[in-house]
């Protein structure tokens, strides 16, 4: 895990929340924006969101925890997402993923001790005709190989 999670000041969180107040059903757009800005959903955001949207804190927390995308702590500096779904498995995706994980000494969702790389599973990137597929820091890779993925992540 990355060593410390720096506390994010309330004003910064509230500023992000305020941008979306005019939307219908604004919670998901707010959560995406918070994560884009701070790299995770800061714990301090929960009461602020609850307050702004007139929801219970437990309800807001329930929404955040329901979705795989939202993190409660920042990821590593590089994020490798490897497709685990069927079409990529048919092209040897599982072996490839095992190689990447073994090289980094990680399990799924893990982050290297130096905070450099996080590996996440993803269930289909829509690259199923050129699998196995992966995404490194937002860059897509088709017909991916373990070495190429690690190189893209600087590992």
């Amino acid at each position, binding site marked *: 895990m990355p060593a410390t999670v720096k506390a994010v000041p309330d004003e910064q969180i509230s500023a992000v929340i305020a941008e979306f107040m005019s939307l219908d059903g604004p919670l998901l757009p707010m959560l995406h924006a918070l994560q884009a800005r701070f790299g995770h959903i800061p714990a301090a955001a929960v009461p602020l969101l609850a307050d702004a949207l007139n929801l219970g804190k437990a309800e807001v927390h329930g929404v955040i925890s329901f*979705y795989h*995308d939202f993190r409660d702590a920042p990821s590593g500096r590089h994020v490798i997402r490897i497709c685990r779904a069927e079409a990529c498995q048919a092209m040897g995706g599982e072996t490839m993923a095992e190689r990447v994980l073994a090289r980094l000494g990680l399990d799924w969702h893990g982050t290297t001790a130096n905070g450099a790389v996080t590996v996440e599973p993803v269930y289909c990137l829509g690259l199923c005709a050129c699998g196995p597929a992966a995404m490194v820091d937002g860059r897509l890779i088709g017909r991916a190989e373990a070495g190429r993925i690690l190189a893209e992540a600087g590992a």
Partner: protein
Amino acid sequence: MKVYVPRDAAAKALGANAVAASIAEEAARRGLTVEIVRNGTRGMIWLEPLVEVETDGKRLAYGPVNVADVPALLDGTLPGLGPVEDIPFFARQTRLTFARCGLIDPLDLVAYEAHGGLAGLRRALTMSAEDIVGEVKASGLRGRGGAGFPTGIKWDTVRTAEAPQKYIVCNADEGDSGTFADRMLMEGDPFTLIEGMAIAGLATGATKGFVYIRSEYPDAIEVMESAVRIGRTEGLLGPNVLGSGRAFDMEIRVGAGAYVCGEETSLLNSLEGKRGVVRAKPPLPALEGLFGRPTVVNNVLSLATIQVILEKGAAHYAAFGLGRSKGTMPIQIAGNVKHGGLFETAFGLPLGDLVSDIAGGTASGRPVKAVQVGGPLGAYIPVAQFDTPFGYEEFDQKGGLIGHAGIVVFDDSADMLKMARFAMEFCAVESCGKCTPCRLGAVRGVETIDRIARGDADAVPLLTDLCATMKDGSLCALGGFTPFPVMSALTRFPDDFARAKEAAE
């Protein structure tokens, strides 16, 4: 000289951006004037990056092109593929929904109109809501998201509902493995979807639309957001659609990595900012959908097909197809295949033709073992059933489903016990948690398959029972259909389950 280099995510994943940059550099070095158009993909993914060069109105294809090929490409000495329309994989298709995908710059509204775009909406603006719905009913269009429900009937329910506000929600969650048609259309021809949604608005009295796109599709999100902005500036969206005095506007919303949010009621909860838990039906979303208002929820392909139905007429569309499966289906050929990509064709082609002939068999060159049709909830189909024609009823009769029309091919190295285990594991990870047979059953399913893998044959009837319980006791198709891949693997590939036993002894 005009050069087309796709901006589609699959083309980019295979190096299209580097190729485009290299073409620009090389052209500058030579003092050539080259206009680079970033089009969508033509759908022949094994040929990506597929570059097209247009000179004197003739458009010739090259691919797959890599950076080292660029000098020869500009010299005119690179061996080519000829016009895209002559490549057999493309020539054999009937492109209705995907007519413009890959042909034009996706964000060029002028090119869109020059290739038939907006004609459907213009015609709809001259028709009554009832007549538009009638046209969609007559086309025979059925929902392309999986369930195959007649689109016109759904629209009629929303049209006749009384409410101060109605919504059109486009389901762009495309979570099924082996499917990418929604992505391809949104990245390659976004105005077709916008036009279809505007027509749906006219037909039902809805003035507001949402497109819910999965977060795994950043490129599609970007193109759709740009297209909506352009649509507003150019008067396609807003208070006065194409100067008609009628209003329709829309927003792009992004999912958050939950497969179950592709289920329509879960999606509506997610749009409202709630946990993506499935709602019990009734009430139907058509009567009480988004924020409790009458709502059309349709898949990207259903809505994108409305354009051509209104442009060319219901009869033109309904003339294609087989039985009650009318029109064309954009079939996505994926997994271990030589020629993977999008193949739009009239319903009715036998599965075996798609796999052996059109896809050219496996990429590995080994024999085909199984094909999973219809995503992670679809059955594994053995070669013995390759004569099944591609149609809703035809697959249903074989205990399968066509779903969103993804076909994933596996060669003989596939271990079907592992695939069955994966189906259960996926269900366990993605279950919304509302029903016990799904939430706990899937976890038990993984454990039971692990017992079988360790050689415990007594676990086989347990697995069969568990699947029956999940099928009967689940509210939605995630828990209810996971037994399809599991049971098809078990019953059609029994050796893989028995072999595991011998290995353990």
